[in-house]
């Protein structure tokens, strides 16, 4: 923790020297071997001395019992139009997704708006009916469940929502909000329910005697805690966290993240963590799936994904994160254009319209003609790209220095 690049450790109240001297020494002067070991992002892209190793053999793949097993999951929404409400188009919100979540891990889905991550989270719980595919939870097939079975399953699989204001019924006191699941599941009598509601409140850091209060009396962070308590009251094994901190202020975000990580330990929980915030994902996740236009384009352990991304989109996504350390100014890989509409995803590889690697490789036909597989290129590391082996920070750096960001932004995808 003595590495001066860590922004995380400003000395307390220290009238530290402005740090400019230290900052100057940060980059470029370090031995190249060490730079190799470094996270690729800490270096200025063009200055990176060499490529990160293709697959780090030292990285153990997280092993464990599979809790959630999702195969070829699809959710297509019809777009209805005309007088007769006929289907005029289809939104391919989730379009063929496979992944496993292992017991006790935090599996994250990251992607930009419209990539289908939220729909996927809801579909896994069958809050949205899937169009195709299977979801297995433990030994049960969730997709085949009847409504009574599904209701019972709800006590095992829970969800926490993004919006702390919209997800709590403004007309209900906290006791009903949290206790409702217990009533629905027929768990316990009134006294036991009250106790469990109190326990859940205490577990999320609120006071037992808050039960008679209404949601509008709480701040955003406290409401989010109530949402967590609601999920917790049923004593689930698995919780989908749908952007749980995105609507919160920075200082409150970290409180809620701490809470979620504590609860995982205390109650042996497994999380499916959905977010667009790459720094949060990196901090919490064991494994990460990157989504683009309804599909997972890269899936790997969090460390490996952030250290040596293998999909051109992942690399661009990581390069776009603004860095709160002003001493680390780096050249950015800017993608051209906007995300295409999920109504009409591009043929072949969905990403080919914006892909920098394809441009660098001289626009190979394969990207348009053939949809790539999500194939394994290393232990536990899967990428949906024909040319994943060619993705490297060096290539990205070459591309970034050859194309000015504004020019890129101006290009039509």
């Amino acid at each position: 923790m003595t590495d001066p690049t860590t922004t995380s450790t400003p000395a307390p109240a220290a009238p530290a020297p402005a740090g400019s001297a230290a900052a100057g020494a940060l980059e470029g002067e370090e031995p190249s071997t060490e730079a190799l070991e470094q996270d690729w992002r800490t270096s200025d892209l063009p200055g990176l001395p060499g490529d990160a190793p293709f697959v780090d053999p030292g990285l153990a793949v997280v092993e464990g019992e599979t809790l959630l097993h999702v195969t070829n999951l699809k959710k297509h929404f019809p777009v209805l139009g005309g007088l007769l409400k006929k289907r005029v188009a289809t939104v391919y919100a989730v379009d063929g997704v496979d992944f496993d979540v292992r017991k006790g891990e935090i599996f994250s889905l990251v992607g930009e708006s419209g990539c289908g991550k939220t729909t996927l989270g809801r579909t896994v719980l069958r809050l949205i009916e899937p169009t195709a595919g299977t979801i297995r939870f433990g030994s049960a097939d969730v997709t085949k469940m009847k409504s009574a079975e599904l209701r019972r399953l709800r006590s095992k699989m829970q969800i926490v929502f993004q919006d702390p204001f919209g997800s709590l019924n403004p007309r209900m006191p906290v006791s009903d909000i949290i206790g409702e699941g217990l009533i629905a599941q027929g768990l316990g009598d009134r006294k036991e329910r009250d106790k469990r509601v109190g326990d859940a409140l205490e577990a999320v850091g609120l006071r037992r005697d808050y039960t008679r209060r209404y949601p509008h009396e709480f701040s955003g962070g406290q409401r989010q805690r109530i949402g967590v308590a609601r999920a917790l009251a049923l004593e689930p094994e698995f919780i989908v966290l749908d952007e749980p901190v995105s609507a919160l202020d920075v200082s409150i975000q970290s409180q809620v993240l701490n809470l979620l990580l504590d609860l995982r330990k205390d109650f042996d929980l497994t999380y499916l963590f959905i977010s667009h915030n790459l720094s949060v994902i990196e901090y919490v996740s064991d494994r990460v799936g990157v989504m683009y236009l309804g599909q997972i384009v890269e899936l790997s352990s969090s460390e490996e994904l952030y250290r040596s991304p293998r999909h051109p989109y992942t690399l661009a996504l990581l390069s776009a994160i603004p860095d709160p350390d002003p001493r680390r100014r780096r050249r950015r890989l800017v993608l051209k254009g906007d995300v295409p509409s999920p109504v009409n995803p591009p043929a072949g590889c969905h990403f080919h319209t914006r892909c920098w690697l394809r441009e660098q490789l001289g626009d190979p036909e394969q990207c348009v003609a053939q949809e790539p597989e999500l194939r394994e290129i290393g232990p536990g590391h899967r990428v949906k790209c024909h040319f994943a082996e060619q993705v490297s920070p060096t290539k990205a750096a070459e591309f970034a220095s050859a194309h000015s960001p504004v020019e890129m932004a101006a290009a039509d995808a």
Partner: protein
Amino acid sequence: MTAQGSVEEIAVTIAERPAGTPPDESILLDVRGLQTHFHVMDGTVRAVDGVNFSVPRGGTVGLVGESACGKSVTALTIMRLLDIPPAEIVGGEVWFDGTEILGLPEDEMRHLRGNDIAMIFQEPLTSLNPVFTVGDQIAEQVRLHMKVDKKEAIDRSIESLRLVGIPSPEQRIKQYPHEMSGGMRQRVMIAMALSCEPKLLIADEPTTALDVTIQAQILELLKSVQARTKSALMLITHDLGVVAEMVDEIVVMYAGQIVEQGTAEQVLTAPTDPYTMGLIESLPNVEKRGGRLSAIKGVVPSPFNLPPGCRFAPRCPYAWDACRTTSPELVPAGGPGQRARCLLHTPAGAARRAAMLDTAASGGATAGQGA
């Protein structure tokens, strides 16, 4: 602008300025003792409570803070875009380009807005009129502020769209706002704001509603356009990453007051106010994996019932008795020109600070939260 240059500028900008006299020629915007209150049924909210800062010509300043800290109200007060009532500008001066603008008659102020000061907002869709094409809207803006004919106004609109990196602007000007994506619309807003070559551009959370790859595009665009036009930039955001990339000087606000100001490097790498420290430390990153994030405890105080003494004291890990009774001033702290609103940096807190530095030095680099 070099880091060294901006340090000196900061030193100049926050030097004491007598009321009623224009600031130094190098200062474009000078905000002094600004106070904006809102009168609502439950009482009075002191949304902006004595804010002082300035923006040098061509300089970049970031206003940082969490929701309801007063950063947006500060901008709206400068633009005089608040509804009065419920808002009331209780006190202070805003000097822009050598003129005090809080006292300007409304028609002169209208001329100033758009012409010399332009503002872009978080949600571009609500700030664009849905029934006119974007070309009409930019051309109207141009014609309002510059004496040009319709043809020239349209040419200028196309030019400004090209400047912000909108492909085939000749076609795009015929489109309506809803036909564009969020990133495109924000670019149109920037184009509109820049079409009259303003001396100051105020951007209020310009990328908060956008995806991260689109945010990257817009930030790069703002940077390059700002460098080209030499406009000064006042950026309002809650995102420390965005300010770090965009600005030279940072003003941190909490509960209506400035709690820390200095260069971006000073504030982000060597913060001196406990609130700023807490904010930076609470950011998740990979080095903190496996451990707890050091969160700022508690919640922002109710604006109707601000704590006596330091407003951050109830949440501050370093607070002691004096903090709960004495309202701290913004005093020099840390590097040259840097200031913090904390008793630790007054003579009263000197002993405590020394003790804390000792602990920090002996206890390793991890910032000790337990004071």
